[in-house]
């Protein structure tokens, strides 16, 4: 009988209520009131423990901190749900901003159904604990594992087969045969890999009649190409392609911990091989035409990864790597192997946090004329990369150049990293840069962000990124890295407490995911709008924390 009531029908179309069965919806409706609040009327006061869930069916409800309006919630949103479900005291006073109609559902029945209905319960729990990113995942049915961003050590199945550099070829061959492996890494006494011996090398031993008693050092390929165990599978794949090798040593703090072969990678990536052809195309391209064609593949790759359910962090990592390769190709074809300059991405691109369409910032340390050349060669070769800003720093006046920068640009350069050109120029630049950094820059940035009143969907992710960067700087970290890594480091150091850092990370990733989705598919869904709004809560907490931090 009760399921004939329109509120049940209405809720059944809205997440998370759409997870409910008809019986569960009927239970909700039995414990529901539909209440009209005239404009100006108070729905509840702050400091109360709510016994109902407040769902806005119509109108607008303002949340007030004393006299200050903090947030306006609208149709289909729930307000102060933390109080209703977790029994916390309400943070704000809720008042109708216009005539409003609310569905008020008994918390007890909601709690009961949260325990019974897994999807419904998970949704609300993640919402309450502000696991925004995982909440987006829950909604996304097309999701697959983020294998490209998985660390390469997830591919390692057994301990590495290795020999010491003083051992003989004979011993090495026996080792390969016993363990049925195609390669053996040669290490020194400190377990640092110095070379690798593969089937190809053994064939050469027989062909060239090299005595089997000779040391393995005489036939190994050296240096060995290695990857850090935390590097991504995508990074490993790119190393295979660029170095034209079949085996890769995996190291931790430089010491050998495993070996991966191209076979291991391919078997893992098989299902998504369509995504791989892109980097191959980019790597193999030589002429401007080939580069241009390959570059448009990046757009396809972003869309493919997105529709395959990758998160923003994986997409941006992969896309940044591809963009790096592409830019290097363009520069090689226009400037050749130039040694009088260095090019370093900075800002978002420096942190490997690209968004679609691709906008990049490049720092050029070198003669001024290179700036024009670099910009025009990129613009003339590819159409899908926009050079947002180019910073020119003369090689011999780095100190002068840095002195004249405004503080925002200065902080942006923290995110610079080497991409192309003379490495020693870059090392020199970073040295001068590190010595010109002062804490005051970071302090004033934090102060500015903590006091910022205008927090909206346009600047939220920027507030997190800039704030975290500035705090990292105060803790001596000026390495270019993605914001989520910085948050983790600050949390590990105990600078940010666990709860806030988890919320910030989730909020940041969710914002970026939503931003990317908006750029690729246009518009925002209802849940996304709500998440963006809820993120403003996290930002407020971050602002309070930053203010406190400076004290």
């Amino acid at each position: 009988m009760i399921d004939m009531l329109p509120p049940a029908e209405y809720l059944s179309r809205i997440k998370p209520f759409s997870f409910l069965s008809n019986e569960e919806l009927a239970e909700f409706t039995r414990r529901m009131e539909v209440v009209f609040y005239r404009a100006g009327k108070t729905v509840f006061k702050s400091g109360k423990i709510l016994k109902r869930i407040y769902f806005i069916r119509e109108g607008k409800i303002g949340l007030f901190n004393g006299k200050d309006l903090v947030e306006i919630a609208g149709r289909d949103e729930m307000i102060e749900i933390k109080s209703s479900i977790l029994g916390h005291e309400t943070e704000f006073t809720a008042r109708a901003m216009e005539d409003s109609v609310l569905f008020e559902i008994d918390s007890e029945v909601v709690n009961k159904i949260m325990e019974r209905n897994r999807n419904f319960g998970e949704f609300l729990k993640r919402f309450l604990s502000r696991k925004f990113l995982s909440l987006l995942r829950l909604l996304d049915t097309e999701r697959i594992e983020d294998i490209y961003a998985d660390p390469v050590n997830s591919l390692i199945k057994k301990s590495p087969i290795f020999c010491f550099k003083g051992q003989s070829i004979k011993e090495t061959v026996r080792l390969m045969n016993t363990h049925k492996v195609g390669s053996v890494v040669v290490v020194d006494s400190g377990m640092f890999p110095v070379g690798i011996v593969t089937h190809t090398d053994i064939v050469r031993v027989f062909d060239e009649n090299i005595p089997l008693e000779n040391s393995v050092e005489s036939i190994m390929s050296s240096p060995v190409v290695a990857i850090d165990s935390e590097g991504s599978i995508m990074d490993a794949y790119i190393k295979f392609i660029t170095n034209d090798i079949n085996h890769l040593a995996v190291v931790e703090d430089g010491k050998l911990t495993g070996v991966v072969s191209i076979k291991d990678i391919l078997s893992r990536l098989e299902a998504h091989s369509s995504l791989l052809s892109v980097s191959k195309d980019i790597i193999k391209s030589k002429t401007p035409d080939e580069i241009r064609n390959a570059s448009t593949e990046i757009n396809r790759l972003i869309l493919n990864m997105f529709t395959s359910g990758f998160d923003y962090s994986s997409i941006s990592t992969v896309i940044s790597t591809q963009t790096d390769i592409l830019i290097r190709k363009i520069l090689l074809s226009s400037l050749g192997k130039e040694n009088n300059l260095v090019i370093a991405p900075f800002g978002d691109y420096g942190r490997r946090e690209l968004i679609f369409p691709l906008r990049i910032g490049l720092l050029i340390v070198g003669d001024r004329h290179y700036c024009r050349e670099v910009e025009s060669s990129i613009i003339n070769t590819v159409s899908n990369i926009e050079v947002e800003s180019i910073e020119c720093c003369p090689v011999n006046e780095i100190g002068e150049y840095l002195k004249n920068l405004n503080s925002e640009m200065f902080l942006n350069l923290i995110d610079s990293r080497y991409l192309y050109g003379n490495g020693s120029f870059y090392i020199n630049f970073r040295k001068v840069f590190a010595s010109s950094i002062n804490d005051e820059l970071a302090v004033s940035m934090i102060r500015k962000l903590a006091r910022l009143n205008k927090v909206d969907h346009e600047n939220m992710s920027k507030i997190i990124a800039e704030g975290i960067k500035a705090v990292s700087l105060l803790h001596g970290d000026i390495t270019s890295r993605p914001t989520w890594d910085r948050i983790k480091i600050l949390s590990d150091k105990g600078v940010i407490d666990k709860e806030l850092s988890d919320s910030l990370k989730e909020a940041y990733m969710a914002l970026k995911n939503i931003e990317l989705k908006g750029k690729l598919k246009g518009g925002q869904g209802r849940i996304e709008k709500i998440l963006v709004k809820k993120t403003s809560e996290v930002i407020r907490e971050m602002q309070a924390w930053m203010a406190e931090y400076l004290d």
Partner: protein
Amino acid sequence: MDGRISGLEFEKEFEKAEFRIIDLETTGLSPKKDEILSIAIVPMTGWRIRIGDSFYSLIKPEKFNHRSIEYHGICPGDVNNAPSFEKIGRKIHEMLNGKIIVGYATAFDIEFLKRFFRKKLKIKLSLERYADISEIEAWIIRKKGIAISYRLDFDAILKTYGIEPSSRHNALSDAYFTARIFQKQLKKLLEYRATISDLIKIGRRLFIF
């Protein structure tokens, strides 16, 4: 100042008022010859529609008028196993007696109910205080100084208040939407400083002020 104090008093009276929003479906339009096929009652206290306490039941008629199927969509098979009016009469009586009844074309529903209680249960139902949302709407429009040149049918009033009707049509959902309309009309009445007794007069078109 004086106005604001009495405004608050009106408000208190409204907040405590017990309304029952009703909707009937009948085999025809004549309370003498036709029968009630279903009844829905949605209680409303002040501004709160207590939908959890709603009541809806089909009622088995003595004879079925097939021509009315097209209006209410209830078929003979639906009501074969439904309780008789005698069976649910007491419950209905309990819910409605002495309360303010609100509906659409309410006078007609009241007439049916009074007659059924008298004829079938031999009890008198006190339903003197009732209001019709289309009469209230007509009054509001007159208050605004606009001439009424169109019919105040249910769908038109829903539209006036920006309420989207649901796809399903039955006595219970109609009663619910009547309640949603009535909430918004109450607000207008309050703005015009009408009291509950004014509301009854307005709703029964007994007086114009």
